[in-house]
Every structure is written in C-alpha cells, then in structure tokens.
C-alpha cells in the first residue's frame, strides 16, 4: 500500500470509514443470532446482491449463501457438504463476473486468537474445493471471524456445531445471476 494512503489513515476519518462488522452483543449471553442462510455481513446490503435480478437471482443468491459446517478443530470439508459446494461452483462457473467472499468461523472453545487462524483454514478449505472445481482463485476472497460472531449463543454441542461454519457472501457481479445448465 502506498505511503500516501497510509498517511490518510493516520487521521480519525480512517476509523469512521469502517462500518460495524460485528453486532455489539454477539458473544454475550442471550445474544442475537443471524438467521441461517443469511450472510449477515456488509456485503449483504452491498452492491449487486439482489438488486432487481428477480426471483431466479434471489434463489441463486440464497444457494450461494448456504453455509457448510466443520468438526471440532477441523478444517476438512465434510462429505455431506460437498453437494452444497458443488452447486456453488456451478453457479460461479455460470456467472463469470460473480465474486464471493468466504468467511470461516469457530465455536467458542479454543483460544480466541487461534480461532482466527482456524477460521482462516476453514475458509481456505472451501476456496480450495471451489478452485478444484474450476473456479478461478481470484474470484474468491477469504476472511476469518474466529469465534467473534456465533450464530447460536448457547454453550452446548448443538450451538457449537452451528457455529463451526463457513459463510458465503457475494462481493460483486450478483445483480442478475444465470442458473447453471
């Protein structure tokens, strides 16, 4: 990054530019949950998600947003999740302008900082699977939110299993999606 840009960031405006990524109460008791299948991230309201694309686009976008889940401290794609990723690969190949971001998540167990590493591994696992199905790697961003944004707030295996997941959101090119043939 050029130094000139860094200098810009040295003023307070840099902070204001960044919207809230995480709801303020999302790790506490009784926290809110994000509905399943909803990417729930800034990209959700960002450019080119469902803007005027009609029912078909909305349905394809919803399929792209389907989450996949992981075993404890694992980043291996489960066999039952392969069809979900295969469908995403099909949609991505049918819509060359489409770009997505995969965000990996962990349950509340494990170290806070290691969970960011684990989330990154989980996001990378999905990316590598999609790339193996013929999607160009440059169309897939990865990020990790570790244990910072659970979808289920309980401290039990049912909640933990829901939280060990990858979420998928459209970054761009999602205005009018074409169904794979």
């Amino acid at each position, binding site marked *: 990054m050029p130094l000139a840009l860094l200098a810009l*960031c040295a003023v307070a405006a840099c902070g204001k530019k960044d919207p809230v990524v995480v709801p303020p109460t999302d790790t506490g008791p009784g926290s809110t949950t994000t509905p399943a299948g909803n990417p729930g991230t800034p990209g959700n309201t960002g450019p080119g998600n469902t803007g005027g694309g009609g029912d078909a686009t909305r349905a394809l976008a919803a399929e792209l947003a389907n989450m996949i889940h992981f075993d404890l401290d694992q980043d291996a794609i489960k066999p039952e999740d392969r069809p979900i990723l295969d469908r995403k690969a099909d949609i991505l190949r049918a819509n060359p302008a489409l770009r997505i971001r995969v965000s990996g998540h962990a349950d509340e167990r494990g170290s806070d900082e290691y969970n960011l590493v684990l989330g990154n591994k989980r996001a990378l696992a999905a990316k590598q699977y999609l790339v193996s199905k013929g999607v160009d790697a440059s169309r897939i961003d*990865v990020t990790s939110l570790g244990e910072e944004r659970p979808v289920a707030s309980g401290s039990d295996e049912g909640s933990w299993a829901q939280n060990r997941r990858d979420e998928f959101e459209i970054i761009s090119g999602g205005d009018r999606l074409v169904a794979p043939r």
Partner: protein
Amino acid sequence: MTKVRTMRAAGTVGTVAAFALLAALPPQVSAQDTVRVGITYRPGVRPGLVVLPAPGLDSVRAIVARDLDYGDRFEVIALTQTPPSDAAPRGPINFAFYRTLGAALALELVPAASGGVTARLYDLGAERFQAETTMPVDRSGTGDGRMTVHRLSDEIVRLGTGQPGIASTRMLFLNEDKRIWRVDSDGAGLVPVSPAGVSAASPVWSPDGARIAYMQFAADGSKPIVVQVVGSGTRSVVPTTSGTQNITPSFAPDGAGLMFARMSDQGVSLYGANVRDLCCVERLTGGRFAENFSPAYSPDGRRVVFVSTRSGGQQIYAMAADGTDQELLVPFDYGDTGNSNAPDWSPDGAAIAFHREVGGAPQIYTFDLAGRRPKQWTSSGRNEDPSWAPDGRHLVFVSNRTGRRQLFVVDTETARTRQIVTPGSARLPAWSRSFGRPQ
C-alpha cells in the same frame, strides 16, 4: 532517569564521582534513591503494615491502602481502633500499640507544604522512623488524580521493599462491544479506547504506554493492524496490513518494531515492521501450511516467543527476533499435552506465561526458563490469555469462573487472586508498564 540509575550504580561502588553526581541532583530525588531501608525484602514474606489515620487525606489513604494490598508486598492490617488516650506514645507514633496489631511497619500520610503528600514509614520493632518520600498528589483522589495517588503507592513499595509496585499501571482488554477498553490496576477508570463502530481484538501496549496496537475487523473482510496514540487518539495502519489478514500484534521493547502474524493461502507467518518510520516489513517465519502467531518479545528484544502448529497442535516456540534459531520452548508429549497458546514473556526475562488446555479447558501456566518446568496456576473454569504486570510477579488473565468472562489477577508468589469487575465480558487483556517513574 538515566542520571538516577547511573548514580545508583556508582553509589554502590562508592567512588568520588558518585558523590559529585549526587550533589548535582535535586535533593528530593537523591533522598528517595539513596536511603537505605532497614527491612530487607524476602520473597514469600509479607511484612504486616498498618496505614495510620490520615486526617484530611481519607481518599488518598483508602486508595494507598488498597494499592498496597493489591501489590502483595505487604499484609495490610485493617485499623479497627485507635490507640487508647491513656497510652502515651514514645516517639512520633505509638509503636507499642500498633505492634499489638501484628504490624511490622506503620505508614503515615500527611499533607506536604508543597501541596502534595508526604509518606513516612516507621519500623515498629525498632521503634524508629525509617524513610519518607514526598510526591505531588491530587489529594481529592478522584478522576485522573487517582494516578498521582497510585504513583505515591508505588514509591511507598519501593521505599519499603526496594521493589517496583504495580499501582500506577493500566490494562487494555476487549470488551463485549468489540472495542478495546482500558482500566486502572485497581479496577477504576474504565474507559473505551478504540473508536466506536469498529470491531477490534488483541490489544497491546507500546513499551512506554503512549501507544497501543490492535487488529481490526475491516468492512471488506481484511484485518489491518492499527497503532493508536493513547493521548490524541490518532490512528495509523501498519504498512502492508491494509487489505490483508493480520492478527496478534506485539511491540518490540524499543517501541519501533512491531511483530504480527499474517494469514494467507500459504499458511500463517510472523512478520516484523518498523512502526516508527512506517516502513520495512519483512517476513520472519516460513514454511507452507504451518501456522505461527501470537508473538511476544523478550524484555531485551533479542528473542520472541510464539505459538506454532508445526508439530500438530498449538505449542510454545521461541526464535531470535530476526526469525532465525527457532526452537520448541515448552516441552510437551505429542497427543497427550493439550494445546498451548497466548505466551507472554515476563518483564524480568525469567519466565513465560501462557495457557494450556487441561481436560478440555485452558488453564494459566508459567514456565520458568532456568528450571524449565511448567507450573499451573488455575483449575476452576476456563482461564486464558495471561499478561504480565511490570513487577514480573502478577498476571492478569481471563476467567469464566463467575459465569461470564472477567479479568482476574493472580500473584505468582502467593497464588492470591482477585477479580477486576468490568461490565459485559472481558477478553485478551494486556498489562501496561508503569506510568510512574521508570523502573
């Protein structure tokens, strides 16, 4: 302060030059630094200390008494009664009476003519005045003035034991609102530090306490490392961390170097940057598909302790600050010893604190570098992310033993533990260096 240190060193040799230096220094400083104290500090022994009634200084007295209690160098004896009026004191205070309370020392606090406070220590056994110090203190003991009282507390500890205190310190932590917050060592002065509306994590102090660094969750999914000036709030992004995935920053002791971990398609590696000149980023660990993160410098800046998954789970490794000479630091039995994370190097260089999973829950450990033995400090609930106090003896860490994640402080000499109550949940604490005089 360099002058004072020079004087102390020379003073022990007793050269003529030392006397010349002494004469050149302000009398107050030399008095604090050269008085020989009768009580010799012995690890594990806490002399009883009673804080005498201090008319007009009730707030100061209450804060000092609590600071001395929290510092664990003295056993602070509560004063439930005053000397009977028929017991005439011999000398300036009633030595015999206070001795009956079990105290070895008495602390007298009196308003100083300068507007500050004079603290006097008396040896109750020898029945004599021992030492005193006068400090500029905000006698109201409120708001920002509390820190002036904490500095007095640390001087009293130094006067009585020759050891550094921890009263004039602060802690950073990640609050439930995803902002970095700050709290004084005694639990007062809670205030958010990082901007509202920005999710952050993993705060650390610069060595002088003037800046902090933390990672930020940016809207585009990236994780820049931000350095923020505490006083002005001015923030700058560490070079090359914008638009990339970076976690776990750590300042070098020189305040110019900053190490952090970057996540990429190839794994997680440690990088070093110069944050004074905002330049010169270099990768320090290599290896595809290994993860290296959570670095922490040794106090001399020569070595770094960090977490690596190169042997399977997460374990504690060390390396030279330039990335060479990497070694497993804390021994473990593969498949048997739980994951170990969050290492922090003690300010005296003698030990590493970290947490290790035992039976599915993390517990606080220290690893003595001379004896090379891990020692477990907690067992109830989940206890994680320890950070050393500047005295090299206290640790702050996170525990859920009360039901929600809160900050706790443990004294690694006595195992005495106290909670720092914060609203919401508290995670990832970082203990500052002293905001008093340099130690």
